[in-house]
């Protein structure tokens, strides 16, 4: 993926002024201090935001995006939240079991870390050719991060992840780009 001369600003606050970047296939972690524009860049790549100037050349058109907030529907169960974006019932149950979540729970019954895992499963099972994840391990402990990282790696898809943690980079065996 090639990003050339990318310009983007929120109202009058400039975020990118002529950003150039090349991202290889595989798993890449995007690092940088808070507010530098990691989420904005992920959204621009996913097509959820339009650049004001510049181009993003990406051969992968069907992108699954995991937001920084879980964005689960509180009126649906865990399983129904996942099945809203996919028909893969069996895989959903399998991943729920691997990440230790009861699919029949209501969203209000989940802890922060559990909700994050549900959002992760939803992102993984959406029919896509690329994954973009904004702080996917937020609220998870070391053991669960390792489990989740293994599942992400097993997808064998180009994956772009924003994170603040080098431990997460290590668990993912990922390349790092610092903004």
């Amino acid at each position: 993926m090639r990003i050339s001369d990318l310009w983007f600003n929120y109202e009058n606050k400039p975020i990118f002024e002529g950003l150039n970047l090349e991202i290889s296939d595989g798993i890449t972690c995007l690092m940088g201090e808070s507010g530098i524009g990691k989420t904005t860049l992920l959204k621009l790549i996913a097509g959820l935001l339009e650049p004001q100037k510049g181009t993003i050349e990406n051969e992968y058109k069907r992108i699954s995006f995991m937001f920084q907030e879980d964005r689960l529907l509180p009126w649906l169960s865990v399983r129904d939240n996942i099945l809203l974006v996919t028909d893969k019932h069996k895989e959903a149950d399998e991943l729920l079991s691997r990440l230790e979540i009861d699919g029949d729970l209501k969203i209000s019954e989940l802890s922060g870390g559990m909700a994050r895992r549900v959002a992760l499963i939803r992102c993984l099972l959406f029919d896509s050719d690329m994954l973009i994840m904004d702080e996917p391990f937020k609220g998870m402990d070391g053991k669960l991060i390792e489990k989740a990282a293994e599942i992400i790696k097993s997808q064998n898809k180009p994956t772009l992840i924003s994170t603040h943690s080098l431990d997460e980079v290590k668990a993912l065996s990922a390349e790092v780009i610092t903004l």
Partner: protein
Amino acid sequence: MISILVNRHLKRILALTFWLSVWQLCALKVGKELILPGPFAVVKALVNLAAQSGFWINTVTTIIRIISGYLLGVISAVILAILTCRYETADTLISPVIRVVRATPVASFIILALLWMGKSNVPVLMSMLMVIPVVWENITAQYKATDKNLIEMAQAYRLSDWKKFRYIYVPSAFPGFLSGCLTAMGLAWKSGIAAEVLSQPKAAIGSNLYYSKLYLETPELFAWTAVVVILSMLIEKIIRFLLFRGVSHENK
């Protein structure tokens, strides 16, 4: 828990007793049943009315009229809300009309309706017209306040329009629908009875209110008013029960 409930009921009973006493004292002070009958005279009039078969026919007919108007109003409001939320042109066309309906005095509508239709249909139309703006506005306000993050999530996961409607917009607008339905019930009663008073259809509580005033039967006037208040509260409780039972069933 039980003591809290007992306390709450006790407070209500005490408040009711206080106001009934004030009423009785005022009635004694006035000393003329024609101007202000006391609670005992009203209860006596109510018992006498209830013993007549006409009372029940009048009451049931009024309930049917108002509930019909209410249901027609709710259904129309939902359809109009879907149209105005979904299509900008529909919003441009329909929203000003609903706002005009909301601002127009019910008496103006009643008098106009009396020119256009049969007496017994006027209360139905009035209840319906008063319900539509309230339910419509509650639904559209909640619809417009739908969480933008969820809409962006739906866009990212390419949810179909139907799924967005069914799983995001409808649940988001539903609390507005519920509160609109509850508020509208009281309005349906008030406007329906007002329409009955002015149009005087056969077999109607409103017509009896008017006749009681005409023949200076003040205890009956109070008794019919009490019937309206009791029915309004009772039906609001039933609707609240039905709507919230529906919600809890949906959440199971």
